[in-house]
């Protein structure tokens, strides 16, 4: 069973947000289908509202209420690390079958905790993951995922927007285009975006220690 809802708003994101609010779910937990893109029109004449259709994804069901041993350890470790970095913190834990999500909220220094291109988030994820899976009997297979005030979501939509722009450009100019350096996680988002498009192909090349995606016309 799934819940569906159609919602109107000035822009696609506005409509999506109000749909989330009405359903009481996070942006992560829904699939969005754009039925009509909004446009501003001229001086308010001919403006169109955006309409989106929102579907609540089947939740990865949590095994039981509360969290596993790994989850507990991870939260403690992260809080200790953060106490050396910021003066106020609030760590929220959400556990599913495969992931332990730790969200850092209400902190005064987001930039520090995110790091250059999310570098700090990755370092924290790695260390917290290592610490929490040591001598741990329950929940070892779960991956640790850390986020700072919705950074990953914002970054995700930023990456897919860039990919969409790149695809348009390739189609227009008929010339291959190389995307900027992306982390493995960001590349995954890029591939998902590319797969939805037709008329193009992509290649992944290794450039030093990094991988780059090249989009070219097919």
């Amino acid at each position, binding site marked *: 069973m799934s819940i569906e809802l159609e919602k109107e708003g000035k822009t696609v994101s506005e409509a999506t947000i109000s749909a989330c609010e009405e359903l009481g779910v996070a942006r992560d937990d829904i699939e969005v289908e754009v039925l009509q893109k909004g446009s501003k029109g001229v001086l308010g004449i001919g403006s169109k509202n955006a309409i989106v259709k929102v579907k609540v994804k089947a939740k990865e069901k949590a095994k039981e209420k509360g969290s596993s041993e790994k989850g507990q350890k991870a939260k403690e470790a992260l809080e*200790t690390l953060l106490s*050396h*970095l910021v003066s106020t913190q609030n760590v929220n834990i959400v556990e599913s079958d495969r992931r332990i999500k730790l969200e850092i909220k209400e902190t005064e220094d987001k930039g520090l905790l995110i790091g250059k291109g999310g570098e*700090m988030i990755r*370092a924290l994820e790695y*260390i917290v993951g290592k*610490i929490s899976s040591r001598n741990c009997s329950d929940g070892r297979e779960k991956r640790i995922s850390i986020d700072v005030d919705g950074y990953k979501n914002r970054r995700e939509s930023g990456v897919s927007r860039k990919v969409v722009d790149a695809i348009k450009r390739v189609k227009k100019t008929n010339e291959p285009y190389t995307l900027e350096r992306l982390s493995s996680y960001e590349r995954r988002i890029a591939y998902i975006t590319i797969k939805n498009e037709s008329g193009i192909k992509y290649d992944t090349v290794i450039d030093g220690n990094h991988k780059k995606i090249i989009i070219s016309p097919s």
Partner: protein
Amino acid sequence: MDRLKELVVFIAQSLVDNPEQVEVTEIAGEQTAVLELKVAQEDLGKIIGKQGRTAKATRTILSAAAAKIKKRAVLEILE
């Protein structure tokens, strides 16, 4: 500056099998603090990690903590 040392001690002790053998010496400079980390021989790999990943992540976190107090910090792992 003591907080930087505490941070390294916490990370190191949480990763090794012999936490009692973790030793951190701080050589404070005007701008830069050098933190020398010593662990039991058999724990060295745990601190460095595959391809130096653990050491790299530890250095990233240490640098952020140092930046917070407007300093630089260098982590040296002693063999």
